Structures are given as C-alpha cells and as structure tokens.
C-alpha cells in the first residue's frame, strides 16, 4: 500500500459575501493523495476545485476540517514551520501571462524562491541552478536574461514550472496549468510534467476542467460539483464505469474528435444551470439538474461511500 502524503479531512471553505450570506465554495470534502501519484481534480467553473488547491497550500484559511501533509496539520503550523513546509509544496498557476512578473528577467523569476529560502550561499550557485532548471524544462541558457513578454504561452508555462521546481519540492499543485495554451502546446506541457514526475518521483495535484487531459495524466480522479466531491476513483475506472449521474453527463458532454464516434454516441444533455453556491440546493446538490432525482435526494445529503473497491460515490442511487 502506498504511503499517504496528503490527507484532506472534511474540509470546508466558506467565503462571506456580505453580512448574512456565505458562499460555500468547498463543503465537506475528504480525500487522500498517495506519495508519487497524480491526483486529478475536475469539475466545471465555480465548483471549488481551485479553492481546494489554494486551501491545501494555506493560501486561504480553512473554515473547518483539516489538511494533513505528512501527518502535520498545515493550518495549525507556526509561521516558521509553515515556511519550511512551503519548500516542499509548490504551485503552478493557470495563467502564464499573469503569474510571471513582467519586470523581472527569467533568471530573477526562477531564483526568487531559492533566495527567499536561502538555499545557496553564492549568487553563482543560484545561477548554475537556474541554467540546470531551464534545461530540465526544455529552455535554453540564454533565455535566462530575457523578460516574460519575449516568450510564447507554452514557454512561459515552462518558466512557471522551472520556478516551481527550484526548491526541489515533493508535492506540486498544478491549477489548470494548460488551459490557457493551444492544443499542440498543451500536449508538450503535459508530457513535460509527466517526464518530470517520472524522474523526480513528485506527487501532483492536477486541477483542471478538461477531462480528456486529466485522464491522460492522472492515476486517480476526483469529480467535484458545487463544492462537493461526488465521485472518486482510478482514472480508467472513472471513464469506463462512472456511477454518479453528473459524471456520466460530464463525460458524455465532451465532444470526441472523431465524427463517426461522435455520431453514434448517446448524449446526456443536462438541463438548466449550475445553482448558486451561496444558496445551494438542499440534500444532494446535483438534484436540480439530475435526470434521476428522487424524493430522498431533496431531503438527505447522500453519503460519500465506497461502492466498489476504491470507487467512492456520493449518490442515493447506490445506497
């Protein structure tokens, strides 16, 4: 059995919208990530997947629940210990245009985390390390003296990856790292992430809305809807045997680039829109759009339970 490196237990993150309204961005989510695996978190915009990523890193304070990294509760660490922990956990951001300082050179961008954590004593060592990192992500030495605007989107994302790798982290959260890129470039970046993981034995939390890409890179996948984790299983299993009606609809909504397959597919078109997380439906949050909704779905929140080996679903249909 693989070692559990990250444990998220009944995590809640609410945001106060105004005096009497709260937005329930993440509501009672639990999962574990094993050492060396890639855990994919998917869902549509506003489902809380990015909030989970940020709360895990401690960028947001939690509302309730706990996040354990290697057995330590991230949110109750003292500042000093937290600083040390951040050396092990790094993040790759979605927008390669917004996440790099336009006034810093690539050299400065990549060396900043090493300077903050005082990893090396001499400037020269840092410089060497930057060159090494640039080579690892498929960029050239002379790129170090250039500014972000001189690079294409794909190259910028490589710079972001180099920065995340600078501290030799154990765990990387990648929040939609490819959604701002063109398709032919997306594949380049996904392959690079896979390679890096293979070489360094990193653990990844890969957050994305594009299920076909997530399937490519993940070992296990969690599906979110309106702040709730509704299904979690191994990547292949999720595609071959989805249980939750939302997962089924989500999978059938993704068009496949093959006209013959596309013509024969049965499509489940969900009616209606995502309800507001400020005032989520009672019971099961998906019931307002669910084609199989029953009376109980309105009254009780379905428990998140294991209905097949390593396959968790929160749905009354399977209880």
């Amino acid at each position, binding site marked *: 059995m693989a070692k559990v490196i990250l444990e998220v237990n009944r995590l809640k993150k609410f945001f106060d919208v105004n005096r009497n309204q709260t937005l329930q961005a993440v509501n009672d989510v639990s999962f574990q990530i094993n050492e060396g695996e890639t855990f994919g978190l998917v869902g*549509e*915009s506003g489902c809380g997947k990015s909030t989970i990523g940020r709360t895990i890193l401690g960028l947001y304070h939690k509302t309730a629940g706990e996040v354990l990294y290697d057995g330590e509760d991230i949110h109750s660490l003292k500042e000093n210990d937290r600083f040390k922990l951040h050396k092990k956990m790094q993040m790759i951001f979605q927008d390669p245009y917004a996440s790099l300082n336009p006034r810093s050179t690539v050299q400065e961008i990549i060396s900043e985390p090493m300077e903050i954590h005082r990893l090396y004593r001499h400037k020269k060592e840092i410089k060497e390390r930057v060159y090494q990192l640039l080579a690892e992500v498929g960029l050239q030495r002379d790129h170090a003296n250039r500014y972000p605007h001189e690079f*294409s*989107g*794909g*190259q910028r994302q490589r710079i972001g990856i180099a920065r995340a790798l600078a501290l030799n982290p154990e765990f990387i959260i990648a929040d939609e790292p490819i959604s701002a890129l*063109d*398709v*032919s*470039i*997306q*594949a*380049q970046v*996904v*392959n690079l992430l*896979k390679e890096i993981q293979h070489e360094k034995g990193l653990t990844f939390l890969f957050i994305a*809305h594009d*299920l*076909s*890409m997530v*399937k*490519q890179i993940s070992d296990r996948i969690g599906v979110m809807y309106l702040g709730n984790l509704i299904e979690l299983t191994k990547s*292949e299993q999720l*595609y071959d045997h989805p249980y939750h009606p939302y997962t089924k*609809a*989500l*999978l*059938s*909504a*993704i*068009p*496949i*680039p*093959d*006209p013959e*397959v*596309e013509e024969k597919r049965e*499509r489940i*078109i*969900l009616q209606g*829109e*995502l309800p507001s997380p400020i005032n989520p439906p009672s019971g099961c949050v998906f019931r307002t759009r669910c084609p199989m909704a029953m009376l109980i779905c309105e009254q009780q929140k379905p428990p998140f339970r294991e209905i097949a080996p390593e396959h968790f679903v929160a749905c009354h249909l399977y209880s």
Partner: protein
Amino acid sequence: MEKLLEVHDLHVAFSTYGGTIKAVRGVNFYLHKGETLAIVGESGCGKSVTSQAIMRLIPEPPGKIVRGKVMFKGKEITRYTEKQMRSIRGVEISMIFQDPMTALNPTLTIGTQLMEGLQEHQSIRGETATSKALEMMHLVGIPNPKERLKQYPHQFSGGMRQRIVIAMALICEPELLIADEPTTALDVTIQAQILELFTTIQAKTGISIILITHDLGVVAKIADRIAVMYAGKIIETGTKRDLFYNQQHPYTKGLLKSVPRLDLKEEQLSPIDGTPPDLFAPPQGCPFTARCPYAMEVCDNVYPVTTERSSSHRVDCWLQDKRAQQLLARTANQ
C-alpha cells in the same frame, strides 16, 4: 449547390510599431447554403481576422484588407461602402463572439438589446418587436422569456448570456452566421447545450454557419466541411470525412494526434514540437517547415502549390508532388 459566400485571395495586414503583421495571407474558401464550415487553427493563425474581414470589422488603421475579394450572394461586398455594409451586418450576416460577458451592454435590458436590431434594420417597434423578441428567446431556450426580457445581463449566467447573444444574432433572420469560438468560454455541459441549439436552429431555419474554433471535438460534432489554418493560410480543406480520416497535411495530422481522446487509452500524447512562425516575417516557403517532420529543401524556399485530391479536398503541401512521393518511397525502402 448554391454558393452563399466566396472568399478569394484574402490578405489582411496590421501595421504596428514593430512592423507589419501579415495576419491573413491569401485565403480562399467558399460556403454553400445551409452548411456549416469550421475554420480550425491555433491562436494567431488568422481565423478570427478572416471572419472579421468578411464582416469588414477590421479596425482601419492599423488593419487593412490588402487584397482579395469577398463575394456574398454573388455581390462583391469588399467594395461596399460603410453604409451598405451596415445594411448587411446583422440582417444578412450576423456574428457572435467568444465572450458572452463582454458582448452585451451591461446598462441596457436584454429586451432593449434584442430589439435594437429590429428597430435599426427593419423599423419594427412596439408589440411586434416584443413578440418577435419573445419568439427568439423561446427558440434559444430561455425559460420565462416575458420576465427575462426586462432583466439586465448580470442577472444571467454565462450559458444564458450566450443564448441571448445567439438570439440577438438571429433576430433579423440572417442567411449567414459567423460564430467565433462561441463555446470556448463555457463549461462542457453548457457547451453541449449550445451546440445542440446550433443544430436545432440550423434544421429549423436553414442558416449557413461559419464556426471558428480550436476544438476538434466540437468540429467533429457539428461541421460539414473544415478549413485548417496555419500562419495566415488555409493549408488543408475538405469535408469532415476527408480531414478526420484521410488528412494529408502533416500539420493536420499533428493537430489530430496532439489532442487526447476520452474514448481511447493512449500512453503518450504526441505534441507538435516548436511554435508557429512569427508573422512579422513569415517564411517564404511553407510556414510549417520548421515544425514538420517531413520537411524537404523545397519547403523552405517555395510555398507549395495547391493539390486537389478530390472536388472537396485541397491540400497545400509538397508531399503531394509526384517527386516527393518517389523520394518517400525510396527512403522507406532503405
């Protein structure tokens, strides 16, 4: 079949401080009545500029239609004055944009914005306009249209706003709809709803659609014919079957191989190495040469001649040349 739209040798350039960007460099295509043509390509390939040039929406300066003509129903609309263009836009050719959040005016009600086109172009006002607006809202599937008409854009979700934008585009019953990445800003389950809507509307009204997208899955679902653009040129065009099952250009092949498929179990994605060329100084030969695994010497120097593989399928690639075929056969034998 009747050709509704023909584009001949279209060139569009933008002058900037850094020099002239040749965004569209000699584009040719046509559109039959009632069909859906998808223009596919990556960002910066000129697909949006092509559609804006058809509508004459290129800001001048810095942009300019350098050369070429656009024929709509047999008339050369590239020669039209701005006033003549205004009588076509929204009436005979409509356009919808990628971002439904910015395509609507936040200070006007949905009803006002929907009926604006009717008043402007067809002088329809009052109750006739309202009933037409309600009919359109019904067509695009907006519940409680009567109340919704009085609401403002911020009271609608992204998917609903895109439906409104579609209703606005269709209200004067145009013959051609240009949709520029209409579902890119939407979630997949909402995208599925909107694509379904396009199909129903086309079946009901017989409208022709030019769909601009980078998503090959969307193309596989709703296009009849496809044009693949790269660095300002259409490098391959054909029916959906031609391009998905008998694609010839190495770029088209690469593009199809680099997208992951939900229904298949692949080990590794095959990306196209490198990046598209700089359009300040586009290469003299084939623009894909630097990334092409089959590049030959000729590709660097001369842009390939167009090969017609069938009446529908055209490719711009030197590999189609007889001499290249011999070369390939020889290397394969070695």
